[in-house]
């Protein structure tokens, strides 16, 4: 009986120790499946009414990681757009470095009009320094005002 009690208390102690050992990994949550979903091409607007378009394109109002070097290292947590007081559009995207290493990336934005045609020249590349396992915010403003309806952000590694 004494042996059983000893064994039971030993097991309990082990259990407690195991409980202490369960540490939360200090990592950002990087849902790469969500990134994969973002990469799905979408159909272009059909040329004829009621007909599906055979042409596919990258989805608008999204962030496209166009660089193979960082495609599985970054996680785009959010991308939103808002009108500024002057009527221009400001795109804001939070990007997470999922790796244990610092990353230097850069992004640029193309704004589109109602017809999904580019409404202005593409913006310049804007650098973003990402320390290991941290996030940073990319923001870009349009030049145009009312004619801007859509946007697409490209992200690549800075070289």
């Amino acid at each position, binding site marked *: 009986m004494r042996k059983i009690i000893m064994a039971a208390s030993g097991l309990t102690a082990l259990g407690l120790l195991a409980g202490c050992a369960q540490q939360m990994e200090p990592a950002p949550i990087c849902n790469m499946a969500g990134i994969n979903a973002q990469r799905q091409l979408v159909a272009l607007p059909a040329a004829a009414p009621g007909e599906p378009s055979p042409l596919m394109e990258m989805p608008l109002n999204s962030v496209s990681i166009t660089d193979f070097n960082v495609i599985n290292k970054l996680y785009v947590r959010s991308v939103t757009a808002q009108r*500024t*007081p*002057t*009527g*221009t559009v*400001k795109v804001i995207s939070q990007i997470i470095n999922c790796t244990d290493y610092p990353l230097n990336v850069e992004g640029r934005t193309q704004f589109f009009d109602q017809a999904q045609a580019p409404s*202005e020249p593409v*913006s*310049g*590349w*804007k*650098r973003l320094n990402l320390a290991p396992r941290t996030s940073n915010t990319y923001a*870009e*403003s*349009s*030049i145009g005002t009312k004619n801007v309806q859509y946007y697409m952000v490209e992200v690549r590694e*800075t*070289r």
Partner: protein
Amino acid sequence: MRRLLAVSIAALSLSACQTVQNQAGAPTTYQDPATLGAVKGVGIESQDIVSMTDQMMRDMLTEPRLANAATAPNVIVDSEYFINESASRINRNSITDRLRVSLQRASQGRMNFVARHNANMVAAERELKRKGVTDQGKNALAAAQRGGDYRLGGRITSLDARDPKTGMMSRYTQIIFEMTDLETADIVWSGIYEFSKAAADDIIYR
């Protein structure tokens, strides 16, 4: 005589080895000015100028006092008050010229641009017209050149560091832009562009 002959033969045989390398040189290649080029150092480079002017231009268009005023303000954008205190050798006009041109093309009437850098040119032509040396042109005569409501100023500063053991050099560069009200001295808009670069060998900027 014998020695002279030997020297002559040696000289002739050497000159025979020196043939013309009849080949094309390395071709000039165009580079994307918005991306890091083949020659790169720690100073301000074309991709920095393209990126910073684009950022500042877009940011200025979000400021209501500049881009959404009831009457388009008269803006002066030149390098007169844009000071370089950094260790980088740079023509300040390459920044302010690009900013002015891109801002004017983008603003589409939201701002009015005054060419203060061409004030002497305008003054000379006005004088010729008023003295009757030339006719008045097609446009109506103006009482005076336009005054500015806002003017761009700024400063480029840097901080250098070098590791004597490795020869590694780093430079932090900070560029600030300020748009100042020319009556009240209020700063109505400001922007900052900064970067830090490190390289083993610095290159020469000319």
